[in-house]
Every structure is written in structure tokens, then in C-alpha cells.
């Protein structure tokens, strides 16, 4: 497809503004003006509409294709939540209103959504309070680790380390490092869960927290979680829960009950708000009562008469983590989703997500090596270790799936699995869709044995075939305008 810059014709415009016929009171100071034109494409409105409509048709999205991207829970976003988020009472509300004198009373509905969401998420996860401000999962992690630091500081403790399993998402060590902690990697055992002996070797009173994902990125429930939490608490360390995989345990168990003290959720993963470019995201952080005083400002509180207001008088708070109240309309969509499904619906969501992943695992494990020989939770991980003997890599299989109309699964993650293929079907996919996927994966293996060139050349059905990912990463300045 042609770039919009190539469609540019000098002087062409979407809108022809009339000449200015009112006096200019103040010119923009020269120093702020650019010295040369900014080289925007000069196109008509029709050009813009056709260009971006055609571009959008090239999208590979969960609305158009099966999207089994493990570890990132690309679930379908039910459209009724868009209707709810489009209600004028919400979209036309000014975010400053609750802070204005007498304005709060006009924003009670929006404040109630946030207040209720705090209560609902606390109930689902077994925590005591939530902040809804973080704008994405990693932002939530950063806020969560800052809360951990504030907690230890309040006890006059200087703790240096945060322990992270080797199967963790890369954002965990990154968030902890940004807050100033040193990271210690804890090895997994042969069952794919945290190695208790390796943990004990590094756990002492210099450890601020252990960050864990449960089920972990191998799709396995950390069966020693109770022991791990007790060992951590005995040393005064806190337990941090990465909510990336909460979709597997909704209504079945609660991180708060498992011993976690701080948790972040990804509303765009678990509660079906748009994800990955379609966002924005939302990463609420929940805490146990010992950490409530450190939560970011503002907090939504209830007066005796039942009305809600924003409270900024929190001297122990870590302060602002983002402007206003987070990505409000995203929180609203998740609120609508939770209310529609209710308790029974959320439990069935997890049950179906786990069932679907295990169906895929059972139907493929004879030809693809499972990372661990166990029943999985909401996602299953294979290694293309048998296929690599024919010089076919996980990447080739992923690219072939595109030709089958399927978005590639996550590959090369978790890092501890060689040639990893990580598949998360989610709860909304039918047996027919899963059977089609299984058929395509078996076909990929047949081609590996009989005609691997087809895989090496994939994708063939896309506007652009195999991308040179190495060049894209090494030579980042290749498109200069």
C-alpha cells in the first residue's frame, strides 16, 4: 500500500480556512515557530478517509481473526460495553468537575463507578482497597512497587532486593529496577513452578518483595504459593501479584487469600476492555489494609450522607501516579462487563478459558512437545523442539498460522522454554474455532516433515510477506521523512 505521503499534492487540503479577518492580539513568539514546514501530507478529506479505511482493512484483530496470543489475554471485547462508555453523561463530563466547588454533586455517577469498582475488584481479588489510576499493567507494577518501597520506608527499613522468578514477564524486573531495587532471578524447578530451595537461598531481611504471576507464564498454578508467602512474610518481605493471568482463577481463588499484599490487574486482559493498540489500557492496583495509606491521591471517600468526594489529604500517599482518575472510560467498560457477567458469569469465564486451553493441549501434545507434562490453566506452552530437527522454528510455525487466518501465538516466551509457542485461546472461542486451529497446527507439523519450505516462506497471503525483523531492530533509522 502506498504511503499517504506519496499521495500528497502541493496545495491540496481537507479544509480551506478563510483568510483571517479579525485582529491578531498576540503573535506566537518567533522562537516557538518552526523554521521549515513540517512536511505533512497535503491531501483531501476523501484521500484521508480512503487511505485510513484501507489501512484498517489490513488489521489483524480479535474482531476479524482468532487471536490465541498467550500471556497477553487478547479476549473479545463485547460491544455493549462500548455503548455504555458512549453515554453522554459520562463522555461529556469534565474531569475537573469533582474538584470544583459544588461540582462534585454533578459527578456523583462517575464517582460511584470508581467507588464501586474499587469495592468490586477488592471483592474479586481478596484485597482491601484499589487505586484505579494506573494507565496500563506496567504502570500498575511501577505504582505497586512504589507502594512496597513506601511501606518499608515507613518502617525505617532499607531493603535492597526484589525476587522475581525466571518465568516472569520482563516488566516485573524492569518496574522494580526503575524504583531502585536490585533484582534477583529465582530459578524454576522441573515442574515449571518456583524452586523453593532456590528461593530460600536468596530470601532474607534485605528482600523487599517477591513478584509473582499465578498461574505463571507456563500456564501453571504455583502449587507452593502458600509456603512461598509464609516464607516471605517471615522475613518481613511483601508478596506482589502480577494480575496478567487472573483470567484463569476468577471466582476460584483470590490472590489476597493466597497471601499477596499488593496486586495489579490488567482490565484489558481480564475484564475484556480493548488491548494492544486498541487501548488505552488500565492497570488498577490493590493492596491489603497495611498499605492503604500509601495509595496514590486522590481517594474516593463516602460522606455520612452517602455522597462521594475526592480526598487529597493523605500525607503518607506516594502522590500522583497519573492525571485525574486513570482511564475512566476503560474502567467504565470493565465495570459494565463485570456487572453483566456477575459472579456466576465470571466463574464460568475462567472455567471455559481453562477448558479451552486444555483442549488445545490435549489435541496437540502428541506432535508438539509440551513445556511441562501437566494439566494447564488458561494457556498452554509447547516447545517446537521436535520441529527444529527439521530446521523449522517456532517463528516459522507462527508465520504459517497467519496464512491460515490465525493470529500467531506468543513465541519465544517464557524465556525458559526453548522455541516456545504459547497459546491462550480464551473463553469466548467455540469448539469449531479451536478445531480449526488444531487442524492448522497439525498441518504445520505435516509440512515440517514433508515440505518445510512452505513454512519458511510464510506468510504468502498477506500484503507484505516475511518481514526482516533483524533489519528492523538493528537499523531503526531506515524510514526517515
Amino acid at each position, binding site marked *: 500500500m502506498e504511503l499517504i505521503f506519496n499521495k500528497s499534492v502541493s496545495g491540496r487540503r481537507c479544509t480551506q480556512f478563510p483568510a483571517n479577518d479579525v485582529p491578531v492580539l498576540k503573535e506566537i513568539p518567533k522562537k516557538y515557530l518552526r523554521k521549515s514546514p513540517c512536511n505533512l501530507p497535503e491531501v483531501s478529506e476523501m484521500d484521508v478517509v480512503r487511505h485510513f479505511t484501507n489501512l484498517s482493512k489490513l488489521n489483524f484483530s480479535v474482531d476479524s481473526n482468532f487471536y490465541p496470543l498467550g500471556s497477553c489475554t487478547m479476549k473479545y471485547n463485547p460491544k455493549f460495553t462500548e455503548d455504555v462508555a458512549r453515554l453522554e453523561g459520562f463522555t461529556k463530563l469534565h474531569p475537573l468537575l469533582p474538584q470544583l466547588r459544588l461540582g462534585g454533586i454533578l459527578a456523583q455517577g462517575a464517582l460511584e463507578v470508581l467507588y464501586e469498582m474499587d469495592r468490586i475488584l477488592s471483592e474479586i481479588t481478596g484485597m482491601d482497597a484499589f487505586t484505579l489510576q494506573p494507565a496500563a499493567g506496567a504502570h500498575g507494577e511501577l505504582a505497586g512497587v512504589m507502594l512496597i518501597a513506601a511501606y518499608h520506608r515507613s518502617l525505617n527499613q532499607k531493603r535492597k532486593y526484589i525476587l522475581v522468578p525466571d518465568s516472569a514477564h*520482563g516488566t516485573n524486573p524492569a518496574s522494580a529496577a526503575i524504583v531502585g531495587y536490585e533484582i534477583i532471578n529465582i530459578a524454576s524447578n522441573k515442574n515449571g513452578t518456583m524452586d523453593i530451595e532456590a528461593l530460600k537461598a536468596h530470601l532474607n531481611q534485605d528482600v523487599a518483595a517477591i513478584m509473582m504471576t499465578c498461574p505463571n507464564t507456563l500456564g501453571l498454578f504455583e502449587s507452593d504459593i502458600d509456603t512461598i508467602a509464609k516464607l516471605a512474610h517471615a522475613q518481613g518481605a511483601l508478596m506482589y501479584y502480577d494480575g496478567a493471568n487472573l483470567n484463569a482463577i476468577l471466582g476460584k481463588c483470590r490472590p489476597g487469600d493466597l497471601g499477596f499484599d499488593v496486586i495489579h490487574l490488567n482490565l484489558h486482559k481480564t475484564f475484556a476492555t480493548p488491548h494492544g493498540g486498541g487501548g488505552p489500557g488500565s492497570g488498577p492496583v490493590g493492596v491489603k489494609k497495611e498499605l492503604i495509606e500509601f495509595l496514590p491521591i486522590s481517594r474516593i471517600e463516602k460522606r455520612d450522607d452517602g455522597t462521594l468526594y475526592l480526598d487529597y489529604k493523605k500525607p503518607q500517599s506516594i502522590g500522583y501516579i497519573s492525571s485525574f482518575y486513570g482511564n475512566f472510560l476503560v474502567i467504565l467498560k470493565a465495570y459494565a462487563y463485570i456487572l453483566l457477567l456477575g459472579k456466576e458469569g465470571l466463574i464460568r469465564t475462567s472455567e471455559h478459558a481453562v477448558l479451552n486451553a486444555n483442549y488445545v493441549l490435549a489435541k496437540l501434545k502428541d506432535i508438539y512437545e509440551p513445556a511441562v507434562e501437566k494439566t494447564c490453566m488458561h494457556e498452554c506452552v509447547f516447545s517446537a523442539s521436535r520441529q527444529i530437527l527439521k530446521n523449522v522454528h517456532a517463528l516459522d510455525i507462527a508465520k504459517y498460522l497467519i496464512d491460515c487466518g490465525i493470529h500467531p501465538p506468543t*513465541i*519465544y*516466551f517464557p*524465556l525458559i522454554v*526453548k522455541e516456545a509457542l504459547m497459546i491462550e485461546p480464551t473463553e469466548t472461542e467455540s469448539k469449531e474455532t479451536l478445531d480449526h486451529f488444531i487442524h492448522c497446527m497439525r498441518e504445520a507439523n505435516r509440512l515440517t516433515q514433508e515440505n518445510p519450505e512452505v513454512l519458511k516462506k510464510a506468510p504468502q497471503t498477506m500484503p507484505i510477506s516475511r518481514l526482516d525483523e*533483524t533489519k528492523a*531492530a*538493528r537499523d531503526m533509522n531506515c524510514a526517515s521523512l
Partner: protein
Amino acid sequence: MNIPNNLCFTKEHEWIKIEGDTGTMGITDYAQHALGDVTFVEIPKKDCEVKQFNIIATIESVKAASDIYSPLSGTITLNNSELENNPALINQSCYDQGWIAKIKIKDIAEKKNLMDSTSYQKFVEGLAH
């Protein structure tokens, strides 16, 4: 799999060539192969002190970002700045032009924690299963 016999190796697939009190280190052929095309190397700073098996560098490839650990304790005397412009050297020549850092060795006794080429060969074969 190329495993030169004059080097020492770590379980994390780094190599070190010990000459007197200086060690030259990099990653092994097994490691560069597993990583795939290397796209970026964050090289260690000169004069920086490193401890054995602590992070000395970070390598990004098309597959992942990985920490690289120092085979011995010591002080960085030289880094391979060539890698900043040409990270592909790690893939093309991991034992020669793709070296990462030279270290002034602090305690040669730590060598006992490293493998020789024969043990490393066995270690790598064990991983293949």
C-alpha cells in the same frame, strides 16, 4: 557446536579466556545460536567493578533481551565498543571479534566455579535432551 578448548565456561553460556591476570569474555556459540540475530548489546562501562556471576552486559536479539553474567570478579579494563555499531559480530564471531569485555581478574581462585571445554560440552549436550 564450536567449543574452543582454551577457554573456561559458565552455565549461563559465557566464555572467558584467561591470560595472566587479564580475562577476555563473551558469549558462546550455543548462546548466540539460541538467541538468534543479535540486535543490540549494552556493553559494560570501563573501570566498572563486577562480581562473578553478576550482570555485566545485556544482549537483545529478535527473540529476547538477556542478561550476560561475568565469569569472574574484577574490573573492566576494556569494552568492545565495536558491538554498539555492529551487534552482528556476536553472531558472526562470538569467540573472536564478538568479545564483550576485558577484565582485570581479582581472584583467580574463582576459576574453580567455571567449566573447562570438556565439561561445558557435556553440559550443553545435557541441555539438548
